[in-house]
């Protein structure tokens, strides 16, 4: 069984069909990118998977659990961690506190109202390890709100990593970054994914980024999956070429 399975997933807003009968799967260990032109339904699909919105029709299974009606925080507890399209951090906390709070969410004693030194120590250890992996140790004590854009994006990834997720969901990880920042961020991410052990689902429309990072691709067009496979075969697919990639390939 795949880690994440979507079956016949449909989301309608009034008369508009944002996601139409999508069936796809994410296997353990793959880095899958969902691509598609603006309005293809990428963000809606992402919201369905993370639990921000509930599907009109269809089922979502994650790690063997049916999560279609589960609230967002419940899915996180099963091992989904996500980053946002517009960076979402705790701006007044230090980078270290950000990752610590993220790691704490995986601790069964995360709600402890008194004491909790052990919880903090364990969370800090995981958080620091995540900062290290993304090369952010040198800014660990700085308030997150004062970091550069690039570092803020990476910090968000570090927060997700600190949760030791089974599935890392990334919504446009290079959105809003300058060309240089994008290049740097992609380098770091590529290194991270190359290390293995991570399962990633990312939504992105910068094709260069996608081809650099993804091992599998799903192409959405008007809410429907029009192609699925490894990057090379998708790139070669005439339907995809016609619908989206245009002159790129």
């Amino acid at each position, binding site marked *: 069984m795949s880690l994440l399975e979507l079956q016949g997933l449909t989301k309608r807003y009034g008369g508009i069909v944002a996601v139409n009968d999508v069936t796809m799967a994410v296997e353990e260990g793959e880095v899958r990118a969902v691509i598609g032109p603006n309005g293809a339904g990428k963000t809606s699909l992402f919201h369905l998977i993370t639990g921000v919105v509930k599907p009109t029709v269809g089922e979502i299974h994650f790690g063997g659990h049916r999560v279609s009606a589960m609230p967002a*925080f419940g899915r996180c507890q099963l091992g989904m961690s996500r980053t946002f399209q517009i960076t*979402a951090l705790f701006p007044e906390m230090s980078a270290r506190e950000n990752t610590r*709070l993220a790691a704490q969410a995986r601790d069964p004693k*995360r*709600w402890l109202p008194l004491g*909790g030194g052990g919880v903090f120590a364990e*969370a800090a250890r995981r958080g620091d390890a995540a900062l290290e992996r993304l090369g952010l140790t040198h800014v660990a004590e700085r308030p997150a709100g004062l970091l550069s854009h690039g570092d803020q994006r990476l910090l968000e990834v570090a927060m997700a990593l600190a*949760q030791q997720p089974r599935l890392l969901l990334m919504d446009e990880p290079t959105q809003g970054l300058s060309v240089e920042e994008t290049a740097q961020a992609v380098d770091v991410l590529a290194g991270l994914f190359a290390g293995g052990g991570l399962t990633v689902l990312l939504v992105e429309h910068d094709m260069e980024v996608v081809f650099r990072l993804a091992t599998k691709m799903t192409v959405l067009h008007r809410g429907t999956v029009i192609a699925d496979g490894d990057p090379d075969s998708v790139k070669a697919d005439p339907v995809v070429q016609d619908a989206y990639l245009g002159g790129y390939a």
Partner: protein
Amino acid sequence: MRMLLAVALLLALLPFGLPPYAMTLLTEALIMGLFAMSLDLMVGYARLISFGHAAAYGLGAYTCGNILLHTDIPLPFAVLLAGLFSGIVAIGVAWVCTQATGVSFSMLTLAFAQLLYAVAFKWTPVTGASDGLAGIPRSPGPFGVTWFATKSGFYYLTMACLIGGFLFARALVRSPFGAVLRGIRENEAKTLSLGYNTRLYKIAVVAASYMLGGLAGALYAPFAGFANTELLFWLLSGQVLIMVIVGGTGTLVGPILGAVFFLFVQQQLSTYTDSWALFFGVIFIGFVLFAPEGILGLARRWTRAH
């Protein structure tokens, strides 16, 4: 910690140097301080701006008043029980109010408090309606000890509640639970997406806040010897919110200072002039313009400069 000990020692010694009226005022200031600090748990740590915190105070006061009037439960236990009761009621209140966020949350808390106010006006057997409950005794005990009923004994009881409440609140905000609250304060959506069921945390903090606020109200009833509907009125909710802001939100100590400041300044001003409200208003606006971080922030800035 050393600072806390010093303050506790100072508070403990004050009864030996202060005239009785100042003791009375100080006792009330400490009660108000506890009340304001309880609200800071919500406002300062989870950005839950309550416009109806008088509900906690009034619940505590009426509960404690009824316990003392109708049972033989000793004063200290009655106070604790009333605080606990207020906290339990809060779970229901919070469950409803946390359906909403932002201004709507504030308004729901206001609606709830005003509903309680309206109920208190009609539920004569329990609340005494518009007359309130008068002649609330300071029941002796435990073990027949009557010391808590004396002026200084009651002061020490209040002090113990304040310090205990403060230690509890401080442990709470420094715990893993408190870390999540700070997350909610800074970015609730992100906290939710990290896998925290934020609504439960909010309900829990409202309950803790109501419990301490109820404790303050529970102290007030035997302190003044009466409880009436004013203790549930929105004006008190507004005042305590101002105390928290004047003192400095998210600091626990600040709101206590804010309450003490509020009470003493009002007391002094109103002795000198009928127009005390005018000066009071000017002071608030002055704080916003010149000391946006409140009394505590002002004090910190001052100590840094010197």
